[in-house]
């Protein structure tokens, strides 16, 4: 199903300085990295000190068309949609390393239910892009066994929710096997798929599995939100020796952005600074980033200066980026799509409280989805998920 979300503007990053590319073979760890700064619109707010007079933007999330004068050929990089960015990242890694393979339902001939693997089977063959029967636990385990014996599978859950059936393999084998084997076997798998609340997909297709998987030791979890970081994270995840779960969102697949032509990766453990600010730190990830940025428009018009960070790495948290922000603004708002109970926000709240309590001027606020199975009715579904208006209210409350 095509996600009709073309209105989101994740326009070209003003400074496309990709994160230091990380070579996992290096024994020396590269020092912390520069951020790639993505402005959500073409308007630059470089005045950090306070309120600048901004004209009122009515639809904060509408795409800002590239200024008519510029033609795409004069700009560096190429424009594509998020699912194409994922596909590009995957394809490049498959070219680079013949051990990278894909397995999942309908990834081959069908091209993937969200077209992320489109064309790959034709190019790489049916064994490298394997159409599996509907047996998540077993084919996930099969991917793990293949990883132990030398391959680098990318396992797709057609919907992340389906991976609940693979919980046995993900928890016991994917997460723990490296440890219980005393380090003898590595599991360089990438488990990826779309999750999150879509448009009236019903409760079971609207799950947020990041909260269920976060306790599993031995795995990393990342969530992509823009074409740029989607491709970067996909490539980094494939190159990583650790098992990585890459969370995509059903409604973000049609985001358009201009990304660099050259090879780049996004560091798996780093957060992304979306909008520097002074008054409040807003931590978010995946689709909620766009709700936050929409709220940010309103907030800016009201005179607030929010700092928005897309945490990207759901496990482990990038405490450096987050900490620096907290130390600057002293106020934290977490906006997530997980349920309130046991979600990523809950863990993040704990982590910030443990590490940066002294820097907080106010208790951390966490806006999450309601602890409700996502209803089918559109009006109800809208209310289970955090909306920009709530974010605005929360910031106003925090900044009192």
């Amino acid at each position, binding site marked *: 199903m095509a996600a009709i979300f073309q209105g989101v503007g994740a326009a070209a990053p003003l400074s496309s300085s990709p994160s230091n590319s990380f070579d996992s073979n290096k024994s020396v760890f590269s020092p912390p990295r520069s951020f790639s700064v993505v402005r959500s619109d073409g308007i630059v707010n470089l005045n950090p000190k306070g309120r600048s007079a901004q004209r009122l933007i009515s639809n904060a999330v509408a795409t800002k068309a590239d200024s008519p004068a510029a033609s795409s050929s004069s700009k560096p990089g190429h424009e594509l949609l998020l699912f194409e960015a994922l596909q590009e990242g995957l394809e490049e890694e498959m070219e680079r390393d013949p051990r990278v393979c894909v397995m999942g339902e309908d990834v081959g001939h069908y091209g993937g239910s969200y077209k992320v693997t489109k064309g790959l089977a034709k190019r790489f063959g049916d064994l490298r892009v394997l159409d599996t029967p509907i*047996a998540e636990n077993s084919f996930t385990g099969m991917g793990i*066994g293949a990883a132990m014996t030398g391959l680098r599978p990318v396992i797709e859950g057609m919907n992340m929710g389906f991976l609940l059936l693979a919980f046995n393999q993900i928890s016991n084998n994917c997460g723990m096997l490296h440890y219980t084997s005393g380090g003898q076997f590595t599991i360089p798998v990438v488990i990826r798929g779309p999750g999150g609340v879509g448009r009236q997909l019903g409760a079971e297709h609207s799950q947020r599995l990041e909260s269920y998987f976060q306790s599993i030791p031995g795995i990393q979890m990342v969530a992509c939100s823009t074409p740029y970081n989607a491709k970067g994270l996909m490539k980094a995840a494939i190159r990583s020796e650790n098992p990585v779960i890459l969370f995509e969102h059903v409604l973000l697949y049609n985001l358009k952005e201009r990304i660099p032509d050259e090879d780049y990766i996004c560091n798996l453990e780093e957060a992304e600074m979306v909008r520097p600010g002074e008054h409040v730190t807003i931590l978010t990830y995946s689709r909620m980033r766009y709700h936050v940025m929409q709220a940010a428009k309103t907030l800016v018009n009201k005179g607030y200066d929010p700092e928005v960070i897309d945490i990207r790495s759901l496990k482990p948290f990038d405490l450096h980026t987050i900490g620096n922000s907290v130390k600057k603004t002293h106020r934290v708002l977490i906006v997530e799509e997980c349920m309130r109970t046991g979600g990523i926000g809950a863990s993040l709240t704990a982590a910030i409280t443990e590490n940066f309590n002294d820097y907080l001027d106010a208790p951390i606020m966490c806006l999450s989805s309601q602890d409700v199975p996502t209803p089918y009715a559109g009006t109800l579904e809208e209310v289970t998920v955090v909306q920009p208006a709530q974010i605005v209210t929360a910031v106003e409350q925090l900044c009192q």
Partner: protein
Amino acid sequence: MSTAFSAANFSTQSFPLNHTSTTTHDSPLVFAKPTSQFLRSTPKLRLSSFSKLNLSRRSGTVVAVSDVVKQKKSKSTPTLLITKEEGLELYEDMVLGRAFEDMCAQMYYRGKMFGFVHLYNGQEAVSTGFIKLLKQQDSVVSTYRDHVHALSKGVPARAVMSELFGKTTGCCRGQGGSMHMFSREHNLLGGFAFIGEGIPIATGAAFTSKYKREVLKEADCDHVTLAFFGDGTCNNGQFFECLNMASLWKLPIVFVVENNLWAIGMSHLRATSDPQIYKKGPAFGMPGIHVDGMDVLKVREVAKEAIGRARRGEGPTLVECETYRFRGHSLADPDELRDPAEKAHYAARDPITALKKYLTENNLASESELKAIDKKIDEVVEDAVEFADESPVPPRSQLLENVFADPKGFGIGSDGRYRCEDPKFTQGTAHV
């Protein structure tokens, strides 16, 4: 012999399932009285809990291996199935398995190992019969009853015993324990605590073998994977899902069912609608074989064919080995449910005694040679215990080392450095 296993044959031919009386098992390798279709052989013992089931009506189209092997026999002299070297190798491996497990029981009750320990006594013929046919690069996947699979595959007894004692010299550095034996060098892919969860792993290893041959163009890659699991697992979804996938893609794998009739206290007959597991193979398009798992030579003959099939790229096979564990499910199991008569019946079919008899009766080995092996194994096991005893326990610094292959996975700390760069990390005291 190969004719009986070819896919075309097993679906069209109908072999009568033989039955036998219980008294013929003192010479199990005389093929005039072939192995029973096991459910018939001791009707009292097995059907007492399920009297309505009339198993005599069941007929399968799947071969009972004994018939196949029977065809090889000539009337005048018995054709020997093994050479002297092979015989001694098999004997030594089974005795190692038995002596090791007995020592484990001793050590457990002396407080040297803890937790759940599942011993393999009685089932040695399956491990030895199959694994001794493998090359080093072939893979074995087991369950929690994995000590003997590890030993058969070549993991040194010292490494296994140390692992059981929780010492750092164990094959998994003391981090796995009894139920998680792994060896990269010997391609032992575990050791799994949950039943069924190893079968997809085995399927993945077989997938890699096929991938190497067809995608990476390593034309001579013919590695085979063996997946061992029990009767209880055969009611689990992962079993069926993997039978399907293995057959679909003709993966080089053999599914070996060690049917010892009991899953802790649950009798196979009480848990399974159709207890004849080997019949489930053809449902997925692969041959299903039933073999007497107390007879190492019969197991070996079947294994040769099944492994050969896989190596030739003809696909998977399901082999059901009728076997029995002489001890309880684990060392914590009081083993009160099983009928003593059933236990006695199988104790009389001890695979080691049977092989010993075969070797001596066919003049392949003398009593003294076999005794020498017994003694040698005793020394190996004693040495393993000594080594394990003297080995150090894992230091605190080992705690965080193998959580991630790339320890950057612990993330970036508030000071901007990766957590694994924190000196406390190497000491095992870092907060992660």
